[in-house]
């Protein structure tokens, strides 16, 4: 990726998109690059990431804007971008525990599609803070 970004022949200096993909068997990270030299689009796919521990090096040091895109991919798919200095959830609340765009995250109405399974992997409501009871101030 460094060669694609810095190399004199390529100069893909614009990262148009960075997305995570869950194919059901493996995880992928897809980069859409755009060159400033020639009007060429390039799609780079980092494939074959294991579904239980998807880890991939961060590209945020090359494209600054990749930081948020990597945060989104982490938030939605749980892909760990090593070297990203701000890898935390971007859309979901910080106390959320699952990764909603993975294929094993089922919506409640999926029960209709797989009868007998009912609710599965659905996030339980999470109490965000303890309520302290105090006496009535007089």
């Amino acid at each position, binding site marked *: 990726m460094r060669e694609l970004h810095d190399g004199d022949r390529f100069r893909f200096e614009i990262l148009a998109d960075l997305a995570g993909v869950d194919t059901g068997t493996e995880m992928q990270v897809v980069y859409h690059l755009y060159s*400033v030299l020639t009007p060429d689009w390039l799609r780079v796919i980092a494939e074959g990431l294991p579904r239980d521990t998807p880890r991939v090096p961060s590209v945020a040091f090359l494209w*600054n804007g990749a930081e948020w895109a990597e945060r989104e991919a982490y938030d939605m798919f749980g892909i760990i971008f090593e070297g990203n200095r701000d890898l935390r959830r971007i859309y*979901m609340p910080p106390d959320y525990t699952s990764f909603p765009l993975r294929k094993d995250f089922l919506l409640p109405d999926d029960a209709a599609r797989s009868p007998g399974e009912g609710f599965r992997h659905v996030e339980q409501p999470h109490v965000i803070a303890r*309520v*302290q009871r105090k006496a009535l101030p007089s």
Partner: protein
Amino acid sequence: MTTTERDHVRSLDDPDIWVETPATIYDAVPPYPPRTEREAEFYHLRDGEMLINFGPQHPSTHGVLRIVLKIDGERVVDIEPVMGYLHRGVEKICENGDWHHAISNCDPLEYVASLFSEAMPVMAAEKLLGLEVPRRAEFIRVLTWELNRIASHGLFMGWLALDLGGLTPLLYGFIERDKIVEMLAAQTGQRLLFNYLRVGGVNGDLNHDFLSRLADWMSDAGRQLDSEAKLLNENEIFVRRTRGMGVVDRATRSARVCRARCCARLVCRTTCDARIHTASTPSSSSISQREPKAIRTPATCYISTRCAKASGSSTRFCTRCPTAR
């Protein structure tokens, strides 16, 4: 009130009991220690700095966006945007529906120009199936897309001016937009979320109501749009407050922002398509021949000139255009 002091409110269960409102994730300072390097840096306050919550429902955030501002006196030194108040997980919803559910699910993603957000699932499905859209359907698509784009740009310019403190351009923008939206409503049956494209074509041929409205609008559109453009381009306050702002240079390379930069090229391709189509088959519709004249909203002019500047000439795009035959 500083963020460490808490209010006491009456409990919902028992009004005699007063409870302390707990620190929540919606406070400027979240109730947990920083988890990343950047977060630690942001929440470390130097001398004279303080944090302020801005939004999520603030008129100038246009929607629900919360920004935690780190300010030093009057100056904003750092910001931390908190997104997700509008995230609906459309990908998951589409994943669980059939392919034609995706069309109406993707519609409200961009509710000002929803024909474009419809195009995403439709064109993706066409690409996967290897379908070629009939020529006439392609024409209708380009025609309605361009109309929708004019409406969207008019609204964008209006809102931009509204943010800079002028109400009039917004009302002018709404005049044009309303005519176009009514026109598209006559064609598609919906006023805002059209749900008009289908995989392999569109839902229904052009009808008379649409065409007569279009002809009405076309007779006056150029003058109207020009006056709207003048209202902004010749306004000194507007020009001084927007010129040189938000420049996307190469060093920025933001993933999302650079879309706006790249889209100059993409938008130009669409307009080129329209021109090529109208030039190659003039007999299809007398109205669409006149269409290139109409796509001169202020924003389009701006994009086209930028595009022409960037490429050296505008014909280069026409030859590069994938549908140019």
